[in-house]
């Protein structure tokens, strides 16, 4: 019964080995030539500004909260989409009602000005 996990173990080893092998090869083969520009963190080509660890603005959290809720509700869409063909219009209407309820909340937040970046 545990032998079934041998495959998993082999996969793990091969996966880890692949990475280690290639990193080692790269290190052995590449020329070693560090200079300051190369050592700075990459920020989309811009010159980096300030520290890497700054406290996030508290206003981001509102968006994060709204996003999390909507993001996870999508979980219901996957099983629904799989069986939609068999269930037909009924399931479609139910899901539309569900989504309308969700959007309802979003519209309320929007109208209340929660989404505005003050």
């Amino acid at each position: 019964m545990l032998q079934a996990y041998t495959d998993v173990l082999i996969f793990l080893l091969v996966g880890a080995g692949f990475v280690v092998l290639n990193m080692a090869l790269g290190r052995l083969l590449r020329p070693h030539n560090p200079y300051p520009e190369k050592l700075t963190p990459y920020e989309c080509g811009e010159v980096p500004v300030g520290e890497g660890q700054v406290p996030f603005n508290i206003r981001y959290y509102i968006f994060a909260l709204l996003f999390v809720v909507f993001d996870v509700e999508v979980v219901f869409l996957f099983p629904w989409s799989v069986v939609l063909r068999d269930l037909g219009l009924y399931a479609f209407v139910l899901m539309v009602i569900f989504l309308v309820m969700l959007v309802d909340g979003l519209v309320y937040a929007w109208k209340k000005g929660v989404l505005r970046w003050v």
Partner: protein
Amino acid sequence: MPLDGDVGLLLPEIIVTLAAVVALATGLRPQAGRAPAVWAFLGVTAAALLLLIGEGRGQAVEIWSGTVLVDGFARLFKLVFLVIAGLTVLVAADYVRRRGIPPGEFYLLLLLATVGMMFMAGSLNLLTIYLGLECLSLASYSLSGLLRRDARSTEAALKYILIGAISSGTILFGMSLVFGATGSLHLGEVSQAVSSATGMTPVLLAGMMFLVVGLGVKMAAVPFHMWAPDVYDGAPAPVAAFLITGSEAAAFAAALRIFLVGLPSLRAEWTAVFVTLAVITMTFGNISAIVQTRIRRLLAYSAVAQAGYVMVGLAIASDAAVSAMLYYLIAYAFTTIGAFTVVILLARHQPADEIQDFRGLGQRAPLFALALTIFMLSFIGIPPTAGFFGKFYLFQAAVGAGMPWLAVIMVINGIISIPYYWGVVRTMYLSEAEDRSPLEAPWGLRWATVIGLGATLVLGLFPDALVRVVNAIQVVPGLPIAF
């Protein structure tokens, strides 16, 4: 799962949900005025009327692949929840406007909490019960924190959601164990599987204990009651009244279904646990209430004590005990909302946090003071009030089940409770107020008091009508398990 006539049986829930959405939308306009409250009240009333005169009365029907059950038990509880929600709207209309609570949000959350309760009572499926419970809980957490500028309200909401989340995790773990031991989420099949299988008993017992603890938190049973006084004290007053009555009744409804329908073969075990919890809960609640100086904390601990009495019914779980429990929950709901109405009325004019603030209420608002006196009598259980018969039927059930000592403990607890309830009445009549201006009551508060008082007295004077109703209620629906 085609579309069939089943939607008609769910119409009350659908109406309440729609009313909630409409209330939210009308609350958006800057000059919302009374519109959200009116919509919420209309929705609740329509749903209640539909339950009274709608289709399918007197039968038990299971719809939507066995996830929703409509029977007498569900109907009665739904009606009770709707009445509680309606009274809360009456009480809250003035409060919400004065305190600057966004009306759309308040009524949306209130009605969604009600829908959650309705699903808790109206299902034999663990998944539906869980979803109803979460619908209720999430809405109540937000409701408790709606006074955003009030530190006490935020604190209440924080404590409520942290403890509530732990308790729903516990309930879920119990449900997962029951599901694993029996292979079904449907309580009817669970009970069949339990009676035939033998090997899984330890898992099942563990699941039962997790369920007892998790639901115990929701019922505010000692020692899982820590959140209750804080929430009932810190939350907006109408919300506190709603939670004490509705949320607790819903927890008991779900517990009755889970233990009586799903786990009747573990009866000896859960009876022992609930008897212990009941005795601890009522004694601790009453003793803690004696030392309180804040009126809402007193009512909160009194609520804990009352939960203990109701739990006696759950522990005995005979037909008579269940009827007594239902009677008690209904009587207690009217009395509690009535008592909170008077507190809210006084809080309109002056700080009304301390019991001392009630000095001289007998002169300032004689009718409301009289009403509060009668509510206090009902809490103690003195005739001719509803509370008397609530306790009386529970005594009868305890004696009938061969546990007279339990009835004795209840009587002792009743005597312990007299001083603190009576202290409030004494303060109202025997102490002089500095401010003697009469209190004027908005019509919502007036009607809520009248209804609370009327129901308390009618149930106390003519208990027979309601007794006939609750006696006809069966927790275990006599329906074939069809799948």
